[in-house]
């Protein structure tokens, strides 16, 4: 009786061992992928890319997790990396690559790239791979990008006696159009404002470049945000704030919401500088709005300009499977991944080979944005990118509220950020 039980036990153990060994043989190496993109349709597109990756090969298996975070806030990643529990791939805001690399949060991808005998510079748009590079080493692979243009409501243009097919091209024209489009209820209340320059994507960089400014001198390693042309772009915003009354604008703007309450959709503003992703929002929440898209107005004599941002796939430090992480990053940023993401989310691709793929977009507006990519600018790839961004934003706030002169505000940015930058050389 006792012998039979022992026999059974041995048999059970033997079966268990065989089963688990077989499991090991077919199990693929896990690759963990974290992203803070939790919204529709970005999340679904990323999930589809993971699925295609898993179908495409038998060595690795990627698993995607949504984590809290934003463009510049990657607290979750930093704490996980410090604790040794970070992922193998993380989707980061590309312009922060240099900063995260210097902080020691990312794995240098150059050895993987060399082993693969690959030259990413041949495949990706120049500005995108530049953003992914810090002191000659590549720390992330460019994923999507986007550009910014001037959206305008055609009905408002007609209403104000303007040509709805001719959006303003220069700053002077823009000012005239703004005045014609703006309607007041009383001295301190608006019914409609032509354009609030700093709304949407009307950032410091946007107007700085539109005035022909340069934010950084790569050779001298000096920030040049206080140079005359950028000062002029700030002064122009200050002038608008004074003319229209900053308190009145703020009061008016505090009622702006998103989605169906978007001020452009509800007709509270006639023009806005915004990115290509706004097309999807307009289609969904304002399908009846008749609008056009033009380039960002520039100061007379300055060439066409826009700026491009976007995200990138990076392999965090301490990854347990950096080879697998690199493999997935390359797949996601390659033709298959970028085609899915471009088609499903209507962001723009960073692969040169895909610039002509207008068939990926259902609407006619995206062409305008795709055509801007050749002259698109990107934020300087610096380890102080996030700090510089916040400081420029504060400076802009000080200026439009009349707390500092443009020159003073921008001088202050340099004196705060330059010493931080110098620590890296």
């Amino acid at each position: 009786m006792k012998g039979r039980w022992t026999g059974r036990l041995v048999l059970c153990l033997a079966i268990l061992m065989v089963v688990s060994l077989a499991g090991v043989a077919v199990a693929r190496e896990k690759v963990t992928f974290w992203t803070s993109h939790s919204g529709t349709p970005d999340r679904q597109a990323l999930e589809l890319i993971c699925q295609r990756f898993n179908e495409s090969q038998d060595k690795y298996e990627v698993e995607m997790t949504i984590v809290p975070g934003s463009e510049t806030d990657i607290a979750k990643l930093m704490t996980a990396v410090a604790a040794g529990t970070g992922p193998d791939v993380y989707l980061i805001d590309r312009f922060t690559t240099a900063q995260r690399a210097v902080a020691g949060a990312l794995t240098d991808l150059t050895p993987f790239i060399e082993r693969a005998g690959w030259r990413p510079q041949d495949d990706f748009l120049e500005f995108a791979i530049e953003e992914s590079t810090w002191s000659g080493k590549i720390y992330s692979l460019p994923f999507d990008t986007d550009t910014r243009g001037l959206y305008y409501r055609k009905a408002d243009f007609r209403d104000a006696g303007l040509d709805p097919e001719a959006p303003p091209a220069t700053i002077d024209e823009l000012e005239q159009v703004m005045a014609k489009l703006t309607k007041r209820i009383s001295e301190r209340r608006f019914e409609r404002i032509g354009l609030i320059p700093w709304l949407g994507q009307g950032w410091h960089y946007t107007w700085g470049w539109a005035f022909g400014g340069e934010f950084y001198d790569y050779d001298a390693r000096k920030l040049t945000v206080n140079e005359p042309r950028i000062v002029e772009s700030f002064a122009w915003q200050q002038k608008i704030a004074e003319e229209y009354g900053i308190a009145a604008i703020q009061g008016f703007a505090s009622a702006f919401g998103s989605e169906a309450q978007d001020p452009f959709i509800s007709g509270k503003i006639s023009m806005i500088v915004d990115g290509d992703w706004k097309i999807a929002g307009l289609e969904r929440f304002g399908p009846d709005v008749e609008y056009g898209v033009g380039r960002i107005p520039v100061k007379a004599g300055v060439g066409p300009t826009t700026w491009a941002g976007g995200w990138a796939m990076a392999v965090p430090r301490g990854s347990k499977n950096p080879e697998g992480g690199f493999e997935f990053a390359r797949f996601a940023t390659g033709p298959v991944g970028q085609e899915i993401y471009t088609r499903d989310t209507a962001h723009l691709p960073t692969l040169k080979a895909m610039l002509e793929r207008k068939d990926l977009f259902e609407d006619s507006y995206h062409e305008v944005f795709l055509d801007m990519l050749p002259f698109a600018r990107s934020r300087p790839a610096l380890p102080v990118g996030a700090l510089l961004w916040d400081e420029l934003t504060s400076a802009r706030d000080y200026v439009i509220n009349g707390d500092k002169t443009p020159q003073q505000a921008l001088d202050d940015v340099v004196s705060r950020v330059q010493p931080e930058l110098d620590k890296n050389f």
Partner: protein
Amino acid sequence: MKWTKQEIRTILTGLAFASPWLVGFAIFTVYPILASLYYSLTEFTGLDVTAFVGFGNYIDMITKDELFHKSLYNTLYYLVLAVPLGFVVAMALALALNLKIKEISFYRTCVYIPNIVPAFASSFIWLWLLNSEYGLVNLLLEQVGIWGPAWVSDPKWAKFSIVLMAQWGAGGSAMIFLASLQDVPRSLYEVADLDGATSWVKFRYITLPMISPVILFHVIMALFGAFQVFTPAYIMTAGGPANSTLFYVLYLYRNAFNYGKMGYASAMAWLLFILALITTLIVMKTSARFVYYQGEER
């Protein structure tokens, strides 16, 4: 004095039973505190220590960092307004809830309910209440002919809006005050009534002294809370407009997690600790004159 074997055993047994807590306290509280003290003397990205700078972080902060000064000013502004206001509101609520009426427990529940709402959610609610065009607050003000300001988007009003918003949570303190109000012996009031004391005199010379230890507790907790004010600014204003709601802890958080300056952030944390410590000591020292403990001779 020498401990007997029995006593030593008792102590060891006690420590053994307390050890889960002791170990947790050492690992999760003592170690991080000491580690942050070390990091505050370095340049630390959160992952690597890149340089040892001694008191450099502290010196930079105090002598050079304009934004640090601004964030400290914002926090002190908040503290100076929010702590006294919070006391007055909570006390007024507690006195009202101490009335002898039938449906009082219903009101008590109502007053406490806002405390159950997470700060994150209530910040969003207030963002809408304070909206300058469609907000309920300005709508009510308009009824009485006042043109309300752009509460959270005007740099002159944003900090004050957050002070006002904090009163939403006064119900928690009101409950503590209420409990202590009900602890005051009835007999004292009866004696005062016999002497013909007015309500104010009874409040000033009986109620306030009797509940003064609870008031001291409230003031110290409120000071700590005010030094650490973070959530509403993080959610509602992101520190803006024009850095007018960039509170100390929000700036600390940005340095730590957005700019990769964990060493600097650690130094800020220590300075805040020292500030809070000094403030508390001052309050404790001066409180001896105002606080009455039952049974104490005067």
